[in-house]
Every structure is written in C-alpha cells, then in structure tokens.
C-alpha cells in the first residue's frame, strides 16, 4: 500500500539492501563461519572430545542448572511485576519500573560485584555465612544470584507494554461475570499474554546461559565446579586450546540460533493468533 508513495529508484534500494546485507555478513556470518571452522579444524573427533571432556560436561550441567533456577524465578517475578504495573495504580510505581531496568543500566561486572560485596568473605554477610559454613560466592548459589539479577528485566519488560496496551477491561469483565481472581488470571490474563511470556522466557534463557561478566566475578573459575559454558570457553582459550574453546563456543552459538528460531516461531504464532485482528479491532467499522 505504501509502495506507490515510497517507490525509491532501483539503485538506491539496491545500495541500501547491499549495505544492510554486507554489514550483517561481515559482523554476523563471517564470525559464525570462523567459529565453526576453528572448532572443526582438528576434525570431528577432536570436536566431540572437547564436548565430552568432564569439565565441559560439568560446565554444560551447571549452565543448564543455573538457567533452570533463574528463568522460572524471573518468569514469576516478571509476570507479577508486569501485572502490578499494568493493572493497578500505586505509589512508587515509577520507581518499580526504573528498578526493573536497573540491571540493563549497570555493567554486568557491577552486577557480580554487588554479590561479592554482600556475601563475600569481606562482605556484609560474609563472616556470618562463613561461621555457618554456607558458601555463596565462588559457589553455585552466587552464580544463580548473579544470573537472576542480570536477567530480571527480560520477562517484565516484554509484558509491561503488552499488558498496559490491553488494559484492565477484560479482567473487569471477568470479575463482573463472577470469576474469582485466580480464574480471571488463568482464563483471561494469561491467555492474552502467553506469546509475550514465551518471548520473554526465550530471551531470558539466552541471557542466563550466555552471561559472562557478572558470572565471571562471582564464579572463582574453579574448573568442573563453578564454570559455566562462557567461562569454560574463556579458560580453554586462555590455555591455548583453541579448537576445544571454539567447539564449546559453538554450543553457545547453537543456543543463539535456537533462540532466534524459537523467537521467530513465537512471533509467527502471535501474529497468526491476532493476525489482522489488531487492525480490525481498532477500525470501528460496523
């Protein structure tokens, strides 16, 4: 429909498309190709060996474990926060929205350091934790805390605008029709936001598994104990085991590709559901 008014000359279109594709190729596809080439340089057997090595397996397990704890928690928090922000008026709402964004605003190193300051040996709660033999920093709980902090915004950020746009009228309609609070949430709110939830979870998961900075600060880099996949890559690389480092890195790259594919599927799903309906809902033709 906009074609007639936006009909640029062919050479401009060609230039723009070439520039965009060239940029993408240079910064996305070339590194990806290089990564895979490097990973397979010593052959498939070496590639698989790098992944089957005990430290690598432990890093995979730890990455899955931390994500399995952090993502559900942030899912709950994200839905609760978005629900509160979008459907209710309360004092301090703006502060809550700002706080949700905080992890995006600070450097991941700071996100790790705060936990060291709180729970490290020289930190506020450090002596008490040490006295009770609880290890947080340089142990799994610290990693989980750091990852939760870094990934707090993903689900909430995704849902707040969505829920604000949808307003509270459908919930009010459900309440007047006799639904309880839980019924309203399960039957009205959740179905309306499910694609947004899924999208937020996918992004949250990608970040939880791929986070390096914050994790690096609290991990202590104990091989086979507190190294997640990104840290394991760094260790291997620093030890000049390039093929192994790239092999493990290819796992993370695969994760990124899976994330993008899932995200695309979610978007298709969301569009098919409301497809065309959005526009028709606004145009009030009888």
């Amino acid at each position, binding site marked *: 429909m906009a074609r007639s008014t936006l009909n640029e000359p062919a050479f401009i279109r060609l230039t723009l498309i070439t520039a965009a594709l060239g940029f993408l190729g240079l910064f996305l596809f070339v590194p990806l190709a290089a990564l895979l080439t490097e990973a397979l340089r010593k052959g498939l057997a070496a590639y698989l060996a790098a992944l089957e090595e005990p430290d690598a397996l432990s890093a995979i397990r730890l990455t899955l474990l931390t994500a399995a704890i952090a993502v559900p928690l942030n899912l709950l928090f994200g839905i609760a926060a978005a629900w509160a922000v979008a459907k209710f008026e309360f004092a301090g709402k703006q502060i809550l929205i700002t706080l949700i964004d905080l992890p995006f605003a600070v450097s991941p190193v700071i996100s790790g350091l705060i936990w060291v300051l709180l729970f490290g040996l020289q930190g506020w709660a450090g002596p008490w934790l040490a006295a009770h033999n609880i290890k947080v920093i340089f142990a799994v709980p610290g990693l989980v805390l750091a990852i939760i902090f870094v990934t707090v915004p993903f689900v909430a950020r995704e849902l707040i605008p969505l829920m604000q746009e949808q307003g509270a009228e459908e919930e009010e309609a459900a*309440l007047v*029709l006799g639904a309880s609070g839980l019924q309203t949430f399960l039957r009205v709110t959740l179905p309306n936001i499910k694609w947004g939830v899924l999208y937020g979870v996918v992004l949250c998961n990608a970040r939880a598994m791929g986070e390096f900075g914050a994790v690096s600060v609290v991990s202590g880099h104990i091989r086979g104990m507190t190294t997640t996949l990104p840290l394991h890559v760094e260790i291997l690389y620093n030890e000049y085991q390039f093929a192994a480092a790239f092999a493990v890195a290819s796992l993370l790259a695969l994760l990124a590709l899976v994330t993008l594919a899932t995200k695309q599927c979610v978007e298709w799903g969301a569009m098919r559901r409301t497809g065309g309906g959005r526009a028709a809902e606004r145009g009030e033709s009888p």
Partner: protein
Amino acid sequence: MTIAVNAVTKRFGHFLALTDVNLTIPEGELVALLGPSGSGKTTLLRIIAGLETPDAGTIHFHGHDATTRAARDRQVGFVFQHYALFRHLTVYDNIAFGLRVIPRRLRPSRPAIDQKVRSLLQLVQLDWLASHYPSQLSGGQRQRVALARALAVEPRVMLLDEPFGALDAKVRLELRRWLRRLHDELHVTSVFVTHDQEEALEVADRVVVMNEGRIEQVGTAEEVYEQPANPFVYRFLGNVNLFHGRVHGGRVQIGSIHLDTPEHSGIQDTPAEGYVRPHDIEVDRTAPPAAIGVTVEEIRPVGPVVRLILIRQDGGGRIEAELSRDRHRELRPQKGERLFIRLKQLRLFLKDHRQTPPAP
C-alpha cells in the same frame, strides 16, 4: 431489583468525580445517565457495578447494603464501552464464560450451558458467528456479543457504559431500538450511560441528567425536555436561544418587548435569562403582538427542517429558528429579508437562582 444510591461521593486525586449523589432506580426500569464527559456518569455506573468503591455513601440493592460487596457477588451484567470481549475466546466461549466460572457444585451441566448459550446467540441474532473470534466481528456485532455475555449469568441489574458510543450513526440507531425492545421483553432493571441526549430521550424510561459530579434533574424524557430544572439541563438537551431580560412585577422585558410571567409576580427588577428552543420560535412577515424584528442572515436546510439564522434588530445578537419544510415553502424567506419572530414558549430563570418553578 431496585437500586438506591445514597449520598455517594468519589474523588480521584484532586478531582471530585461525584458529590453527594442520591438516586433511586425502580425495579424493571431502563434509566439513562446523561451528561457531558467528566460529569461523573461512568463513575457512578462503575460504583453501582462494584468496579469502584465510593469514598462516602452507600449503594443498596433491593434494600440490602451492597457497598462493600465485591463486583463478582453483585449479580450485575456490565457492558463496557469498548466491549471488553475476551479476545482469545470465540463468540460462543465468550458468552459461556460467566457460566463456566461458577463453582462446580452450583454450575449448570454442560448441556444446560450449551442450551443457554445457543438461546442467547439466537436472542442477539448471532448464532451464525458462534465460532468466530471478536476481532473478526463488526462493532455492532461485538456489542451484541457483549450484551449476550452479560445476560448469560441472568443478572439482576444490567449496566451499560456508553453502549453505542463507538458505533456509527446508523448502527447506533438500530441497536438502541433493539435494546429497548430487548428491555421490554426481559424487564431487567437497566442503567446506561450516554452523552447523546437523543439516545437518552428515545430509549430510557427515565433520564438522569448529570453535570460536574452532581445530578441536575431526574425525570421522564418528556419532563426533562419540556420542563428542564435549570439552565444547564435546558442547554444540554437540545439547541436553545438565550434572551437576557429583566423581571419586574409579573412582566419580563426582553429588548423592546414585554411578556407576562405570572409566576414571577412577586419579583421586582431582577435580571433573568430566558431560553427558547429553535422550534418554539414562530417566524412571519407581519408583526404579531410582542414580536421582535429580525433580519435573515442564513438559511440552512437540515434534513426534515430548515434552520434560519436571524439577527435581532434590537441588537440582541443572533437567534436560531427552525421551520418545518412545509412552513418554509409557505413563507419562502430570503437572505437579508426583514421578518418578525414570536416566542411560543419561553422559560425564564432568574439570575443567581438555580431553581424556578416550572412554567405553566
């Protein structure tokens, strides 16, 4: 079910949405809350529904205090201005929603729910759209689904917030007549909010005129139109002409003419405002007694009537008069022609008094 609103006050921050509102809605009536935007009519409706809580005052349903009762326990049907249909559910599932959330031991059986939904779909003439989603429906169809959904739980009160506000003129007209017929069939006590005076006057048994968080007048369509309680109601319900004058000893002087106003016989030398509807102005070439001379400025045919914009020769400004097509053909006024007008019905409001007794 009768609804009694007693001394209800509601504020949002510094904005006073409702001030000491008292209203009784008798069983089985269809009542319109009519007022300009910001007059508090929607707030009052939402308080009756339990979607807002009043800061002061009470709501009684059938004599029982329902002020603190939750919305879900009030057994009201609410139709939202923008329908608020569940967008992820089909028309059928939307209508069934209220029945499916009833606790299991009280819930009707599946076949009973199915039968109920089908009969409601027939009632709103949408059985052929049962498996469609709200986004696939037109505005008028959505509104009917919203009505059916609200009726499914057999509410004791129907509350409708600007039910036809988002529809175009023709669909509005059809739907509001259909709503009136529906009300005559079901006889559920109903309250609807509107800012359209024509809609209120045509559909409602009783019109509640609201302004700035207060009720200005309650009455039948005829009462509020023929005997407005105050200048606001007069101005809000239809077009008016304003005449400034002085009341003295049972007579009012407007420009060059004097008219009798027996109900103000005890009042001496007080400024007053007189209101005349455009169709209560008689236009002629020869001067009747107590006539005001005017010059025709503009002639605008508007559907069934012809609107004349006249300029008073005594310097009192512009006047709008309405002639029927027949009268217009008979008189054939010309632009710039000098004519005379007579006020068939004038309502006087003394300045600094909100209330005056109704004119005879």
